[in-house]
């Protein structure tokens, strides 16, 4: 069923992506960089958008353009966001992240149209909206990025949820390609030796399977290089996010949501390192000039869970309108906090540890501790917990976590009911009302101090 790599395919890829695509996208970027205003961006409460986002957009557009021409030029893997991609990257696979693609559909407000295709085929509205978006795109070919490449292999890692396993089984059946599973036992309290050994063994077993599909041998030298790039990019990403500790914060969590795409989709590539270095520079200029991302930063908040992709700007503006900056998010942090675990000298063992320990693969108490730590380190005044109908692993536990903040730590916390990708499970009116009430509580609590 899968397409073999041909000289023609490679040539087409070179021409379309590296020649024509590179030029067009660079031109578009330069045009974007000159733009200082964006439609709907309220300059009275928010600082102008980060300049680097044009560069980031170019990078991601090139990634998706590459996908469009990947079949025939490269072997293609579809992977879950928490999957150990270093081995595939070292083998030269083009890597597509359906979750990121779904988020992109969400941000461009295409979800309802695309997810409906899956719903019409019988996929219930009660399943994750990322999965519905992806399955809808597969069934209908609809996508805002032109075309998604057909996978030669699927890689699902259960360290973010079990949903991906159910979802990738559907893809495996549809595409008739192998599904490689990396099963990562959930860590309720702490990881056991046999958990780590199990993940490591699956990574070892994955190598020959991936080699067979790639048609070549894995070079450990290359693998180490990829791990080094991944690690460095993750550290830089963490640095970017940590800049939000400044008062006023030069960035918002919403900037984080927008700029996280490369660390998810392109980690392991040197270009990400370069991008985040530049991002740091831009942020540091803001800090030196005392520019805050929210113009009159009075309150600093934490966001828990995935963003509401189809309401990113609206959320940023609503909070900024109250002088509140959502400066940090557990979600964006999750892509940096494991950086210290990566070790190129022991690529498989360290990968086993790294991929076992994402926030989502650890207990609800651990998440509360992480949030408390962020509240301290980022000097936060309140917590917004997005209760995401489409993400149970992230959301279950939030009722108790909120209860802890409100009743034990004296920190106002809001449980905001929504969905990360499906606007039909969200109401502006209701959300605005709740946020307004929450902001009143925040005001009161600071007056009481």
């Amino acid at each position, binding site marked *: 069923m899968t397409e073999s790599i041909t000289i023609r395919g490679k040539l087409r890829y070179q021409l379309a992506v590296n020649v024509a695509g590179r030029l067009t996208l660079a031109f578009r970027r330069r045009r974007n960089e000159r733009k200082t205003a964006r439609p709907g961006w309220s300059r009275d409460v928010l600082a102008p958008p980060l300049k680097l986002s044009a560069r980031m957009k170019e990078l991601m557009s090139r990634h998706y353009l590459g996908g469009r021409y990947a079949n025939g030029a490269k072997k293609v893997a579809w992977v879950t966001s928490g999957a150990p991609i270093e081995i595939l990257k070292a083998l030269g696979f083009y890597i597509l992240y359906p979750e990121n693609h779904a988020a992109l559909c969400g941000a461009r407000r295409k979800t309802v149209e695309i997810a409906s295709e899956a719903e019409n085929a019988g996929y219930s509205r009660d399943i994750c909206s990322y999965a519905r978006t992806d399955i809808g795109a597969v069934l209908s070919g609809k996508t805002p990025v032109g075309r998604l490449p057909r996978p030669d292999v699927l890689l699902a890692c259960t360290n973010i949820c*079990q949903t991906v396993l*159910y979802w990738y089984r559907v893809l495996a059946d549809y595409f008739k390609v192998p599904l490689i*599973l990396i099963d990562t036992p*959930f860590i309720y309290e702490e990881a056991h030796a*046999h958990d780590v050994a199990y993940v490591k063994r699956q990574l070892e077993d994955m190598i020959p399977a991936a080699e067979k599909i790639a048609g070549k041998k894995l070079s450990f030298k290359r693998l180490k290089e990829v791990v080094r790039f991944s690690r460095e990019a993750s550290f830089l990403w963490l640095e970017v996010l940590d800049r939000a500790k400044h008062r006023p914060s030069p960035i918002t969590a919403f900037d984080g949501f927008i700029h996280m795409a490369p660390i998810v989709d392109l980690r392991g590539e040197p270009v990400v390192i370069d991008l985040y270095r530049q991002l740091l520079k831009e942020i540091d200029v803001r800090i030196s000039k005392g520019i805050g991302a929210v113009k009159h930063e009075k309150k600093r908040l934490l966001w828990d869970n995935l963003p509401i992709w189809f309401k990113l700007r609206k959320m940023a503006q609503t909070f900024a309108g109250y002088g509140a900056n959502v400066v940090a998010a557990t979600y964006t942090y999750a892509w940096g906090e494991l950086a210290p675990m990566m070790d190129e000298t022991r690529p498989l063992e360290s990968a086993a540890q790294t991929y076992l320990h994402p926030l989502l693969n650890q207990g*609800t108490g651990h998440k509360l501790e992480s949030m408390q730590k962020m509240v301290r380190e980022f000097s936060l005044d309140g917590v917004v917990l997005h209760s995401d109908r489409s993400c149970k*692993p992230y*959301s279950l536990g939030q*009722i108790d976590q909120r209860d802890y903040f409100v009743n034990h730590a004296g920190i106002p916390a809001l449980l905001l009911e929504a969905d990360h990708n499906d606007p039909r499970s969200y109401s502006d009116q209701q959300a605005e009302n709740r946020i307004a009430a929450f902001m009143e509580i925040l005001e009161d609590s600071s007056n009481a101090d």
Partner: protein
Amino acid sequence: MIDLPSRKKVIREFQKKGGKIAAVLPIRYPRELFRAFGFLPVEVWGPPHADVTLGGSHLQSYTCDIVRNAVSFLLSGGLDRTDLILVPHTCDSLQGMGSVLLDFVHPKQKVLTLYHPRGVRKADFDFLTEELKRLCGELSDWTGGEPPPGAFWEAIYREETADRALARLYRDRELLGLSDREFYRIVRSREFLPAEDFIENEKKLARREKRSTSGVPILLSGIVPEPMDLFDEIETMGARVVADDLACGTRRLYKSGHSEDPFVRMAERLFSAPPDPTRGSPISERADHLKNLIRKSGAKGVLIYDVKFCEPELFDVPLLRKKLEAEGTPVNYVEFEMGKILSQQTLTRIEAFIEMIG
């Protein structure tokens, strides 16, 4: 007819003899391990009679009722007579439940978890063996000692015998002269009866003439058929269940193991179960398994009856439907919320389906 005691009565009697009780959430776990330590596993499949607002104070409304009701039941004192709670990591909702119990609810009972791997590779098998050893270790630490020598093997053989008795019940279901409701009451008594009692009951059931074949034969798939009135309703509608693919039914028909290592043997047994989405079985494997059940039982349609928000089940429905309908077997999916009564909407859907295939 067999006189089945209630869960309450079974618990009381087991405790009278000095035994302890383990409350166990769905779906898979090693019964024999708990019995070896002197615990009777009594399963909790979302009791429908608890005040559900209690569970709502910990879990959002989009959590499935099996989990929300179980938490409600625990908080309303329904599990007060149990000594420990085992929450297998079956799905994201049970993951959330286990974690919230450990980190926030802190029930008086000891809370244990078990991770069943999602594949059937050698690595998965070896992991499961190690995971069972870990569970055993935690039980020894907590109870203050290993079971007496021989207790392990005694428990393993007993559970294997009980599983063979269960398989015989399924094989002979048409000869037992039981209504569907009676049949499933007996099958589901495996959820709380000591294996020795289950074995005795099976022996008592006489085999008779094949039951008259008046109703429309259907295959019932899903996690759990609650409330049990469902079976009466299906009968009134003119149908009968001739085979099942229920998580509390044939998806737990475990075979006997071979190994002489008790942990390997328990893992062999858990691995021998039919395909199930929560174990990561490929959808095509599930479809083939269902086709096989349809062929053997003569079912004319498949009713997938599931509790709302059950993601592992929901993902498979469209492809199962496509694959089975391609071979001429209509499939209908009906969801329900776990309450005391069946909703009219649910019943109408089932009835229309039976009219359609009848």
